[in-house]
């Protein structure tokens, strides 16, 4: 996700309590000598409140109206509606209250993940127009195979403005309300596509498909269905920074990281999972599920069959859910085979009710702009609830029709998936080799659109601050936007996610050249 275009000014530091304190403290000093500590505080405070009360009763009508401001240029201070704030409000009406969620959502981005995306927006690299701009390596977007889709469109598009599918669509396809959870033919097309992506090792059932406007709302809807506000999910860390937003913002579900380590190649360990679960229980936090991403983001490794079975056992023993975000399932490039949680659920006779899968077309099919996500669940009640909730996050029928045509062209899809994987593989090989020449190593990974790079010996000190210093150097000096591990809640400092599918092959030497300068300028920590 790209962020906001303009810099947002920091919120004012002035707060009602601070002004109040400035009045009370000197007063306390005066009274304290006479009346002791309690009276010394009580009397000035009482006087203070009476003063405010008097002022409020005799306040003049409001003065100048707020000037019409342009978006983002004039962030107003959040007005709390406590009585204290009302006493000190300027004008007889303060600003109308907004919900408690707003302050954390509206505040300027402080995560390097989002700051980096903003910087690229402001100063994007362009071979001709802006050769010194920031190169985007911080967004897991796949530009390698868009030409294949473009080619298909130009061959199959009708002349009409709706393009392909316009005729099949007919005006009634868009002129009437359609099921919010997706047209039947689109669910069939998505189920077939998922089956193809996972190499037909499992067959996806269209009646278990719920369509949403992207994987982001798919995850949010599942969070709303599986957990109450204040409950928690266990998440192997490092994890995709967006989870913090998708799951916490409105669904209010907490994320408890289960730290993975480089010595294990950042593979999830059931022991660590158990520890995290038990600690949560001691704290009184109710864990409702485990959220895994497979292939993993940001590390790029895959969970093997044994681990998936172990996870299902773990979930079963504690009667919790498993959400498997498999959005990169078709973007594998290693020699390992991808195993979907659906395969595990299929093989068990019972207990599928706790398994839910998230998918979408943003990564494997390179069209994040089209906003297509899928919830795939074996649980009828979850499906029923999710379907109703898709009304808040639905996909336009025009888009669905266009995609049905595309996805039903089986030969094209198979060709696309195969070629796409090959191209990701080539880029990965070139990229990793380029880094290796600089003495920089990556974790062995086999899926995703990125690699997990070890720059730990380049940071100083060996902690989060050192890591962020290096990130800053990479962003502002080398003009490379990469994602630091701390933004992904990685417990070991010095790891960075580099996405390589936003580049073309010619750009790799340029990236490596810029990296080289940074690598050489950093003394390896002794």
């Amino acid at each position: 996700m790209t962020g906001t275009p303009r810099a947002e000014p920091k919120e004012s530091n002035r707060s009602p309590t601070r002004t109040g304190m400035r009045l009370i403290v000197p007063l306390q000093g005066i009274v304290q000598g006479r009346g002791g500590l309690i009276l010394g505080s009580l009397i000035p405070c009482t006087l203070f409140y009476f003063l405010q009360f008097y002022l409020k009763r005799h306040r003049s009508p409001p003065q100048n109206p707020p000037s019409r401001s342009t978006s983002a240029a004039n962030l107003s201070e959040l007005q709390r509606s406590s009585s204290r704030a009302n006493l000190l409000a300027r004008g007889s009406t303060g600003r109308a209250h907004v919900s408690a969620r707003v302050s954390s959502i509206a505040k300027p981005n402080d995560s390097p993940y989002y700051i980096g995306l903003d910087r690229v927006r402001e100063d994007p690299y362009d071979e001709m127009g802006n050769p010194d701009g920031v190169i985007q390596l911080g967004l897991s977007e796949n530009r390698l195979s868009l030409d294949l889709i473009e080619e298909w469109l130009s061959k199959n598009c009708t002349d009409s403005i709706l393009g392909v599918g316009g005729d099949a669509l007919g005006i009634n396809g868009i002129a009437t309300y359609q099921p919010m959870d997706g047209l039947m033919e689109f669910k069939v097309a998505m189920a077939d596509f998922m089956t193809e992506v996972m190499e037909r090792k499992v067959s996806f059932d269209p009646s278990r498909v719920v369509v949403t406007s992207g994987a982001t709302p798919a995850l949010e809807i599942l969070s709303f269905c599986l957990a109450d506000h204040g409950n928690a999910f266990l998440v192997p860390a490092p994890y995709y920074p967006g989870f913090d937003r998708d799951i916490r913002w409105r669904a209010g579900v907490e994320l408890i990281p289960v730290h993975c380590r480089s010595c294990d190649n950042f593979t999830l360990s059931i022991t660590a999972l158990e520890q995290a679960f038990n600690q949560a229980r001691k704290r009184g936090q109710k864990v409702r599920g485990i959220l895994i991403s497979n292939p993993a983001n940001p590390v790029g490794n895959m969970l093997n069959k044994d681990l998936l079975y172990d996870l299902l056992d773990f979930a079963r023993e504690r009667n919790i859910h498993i959400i498997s975000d498999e959005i990169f399932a078709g973007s594998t490039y290693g020699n390992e085979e991808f195993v979907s949680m659906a395969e595990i659920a299929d093989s068990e006779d019972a207990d599928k009710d706790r398994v839910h899968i998230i998918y979408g077309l943003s990564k494997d099919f390179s069209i994040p702009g089209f906003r297509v996500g899928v919830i795939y669940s074996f649980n009828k009640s979850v499906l029923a609830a999710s379907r109703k909730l898709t009304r808040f996050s639905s996909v336009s029928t025009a888009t669905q029709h266009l995609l049905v045509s595309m996805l039903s062209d089986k030969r094209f899809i198979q060709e696309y998936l195969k070629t796409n994987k090959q191209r990701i593989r080539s880029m990965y090989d070139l990229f990793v080799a380029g880094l290796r020449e600089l003495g920089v190593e990556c974790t062995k990974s086999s899926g995703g659109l990125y690699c997990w790079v070890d720059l730990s010996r380049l940071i100083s000190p060996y902690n989060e601050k050192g890591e962020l210093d290096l990130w800053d150097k990479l962003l502002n000096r080398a003009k490379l936007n990469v994602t630091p591990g701390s933004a992904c809640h990685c417990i070991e400092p010095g790891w960075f996610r580099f996405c390589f599918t936003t580049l073309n092959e010619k750009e790799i030497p340029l990236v490596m050249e810029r990296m080289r300068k940074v690598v050489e300028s950093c003394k390896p920590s002794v």
Partner: protein
Amino acid sequence: MTIEIERPSVGLSKVAVSETHCEKSPYFAGWRAYDENPYDELCNPSGVIQMGLAENQVSLDLVEKYLQKPADNGSTTVGFRENALFQDYHGLQAFRKAMASFMEQIRGGRAKFDPDRVVITAGATAANELLTFILADPGDAMLIPTPYYPGFDRDLRWRTGANIVPVHCDSSNDFDITPEALEAAYREAESKNIKVRGMLITNPSNPLGITIKRSTLEDILDFVTRKNIHLVSDEIFSGSAFSSEDFVSVAEIVEARNYEDSERVHIVYSLSKDLGLPGFRVGTIYSYNDKVVTTARRMSSFTLISSQTQHLLALMLSDKSFTENYIKTNRQRLKKRYQKIIDGLKGVGIECLRGNAGLFCWMNLSSLLEKPTKEQELALWKLILHEVKINISPGSSCHCSEPGWFRVCFANMSEQTLEVALRRIHEFMDRRNNVKSFDVYSSDQLFSS
């Protein structure tokens, strides 16, 4: 013999099991009856005619013509790459500009809209929920004048945990919203220790089919300012007012007041009604409050419109020759359709509220009720559904405090179908009148389903 051990099933959240989706309401139950036995002129002439869904099909031919014309620049492939990758929650600038200008056109240029204040969402349903998430904490309330669109019970409350406190309106003054009613509702909330955070009005009103008077809008704006709460104006039917001059948008009032205190005002719009394109899932929030705009933008990550759709609509909505003609023609056709149904109903002695907007009329059947109760109203609704085979929406599902009112949609069908519906209503009323004069059947039998 094996002993079956009942394994506890894995738990779901309160949201998942709650009934706040309201699908048991007669409003939605009627849709199901229609789905099971839908009217079709040729294949199922005795099926249920759907008059409970506010869809606009009267001007579809204009949209159809536009959408099927040859794209002059191969628009589907040109810009494909940018569209494919574009997932910025700011939305395509061209689309925001086009929406802002379309909204200005609908208001006859009487209000200006800044594209930078337009936030995109996948439908007005998402826009209303999103605003509620922003303006209210769980347990807080929004005031809504009754009768109101039944979907609000779900959209504003389900995931947000917010409440709705009704502002009661009645036929004594044509359901106008009075300052007394506003104060009464606010006091009621206070007495229950519920914090009111804002007011949501639908203008033109659903289900009433009338535009809100300018003086009432002024009163409402004064009220929300006095109470220091927000005002959300859902103007989704603004392009469906039968004449442009009849509709006054809260945007006009805000401008007339020189944007004083405008930070509490937010407008919701969508293309589902005016343009008859609900399938596109296009909604917008227009807010005069910067913080709300910023927050809404970020939250819209959960409900973005596909860039392909944005691109297409940007082209369509910035085509002034298309939009001017569409808006004008649509208004004329809706007015004509409204007149037809009003006359048809009057012919059998059924009165409606005098409407001037929307895709429906507000019909008064209170004289058909033995007793003015909700139960009698629902019994009549069921009778009409099963005997007359017409699905209309009972006022109680819209929280109307007076029993006997029904919302009847007229724009989601062809003229022929409307005639069939009117004929059925004629026959129903004839039967009733004959029965009354003979006094053979008891009223209980009449109203049993």
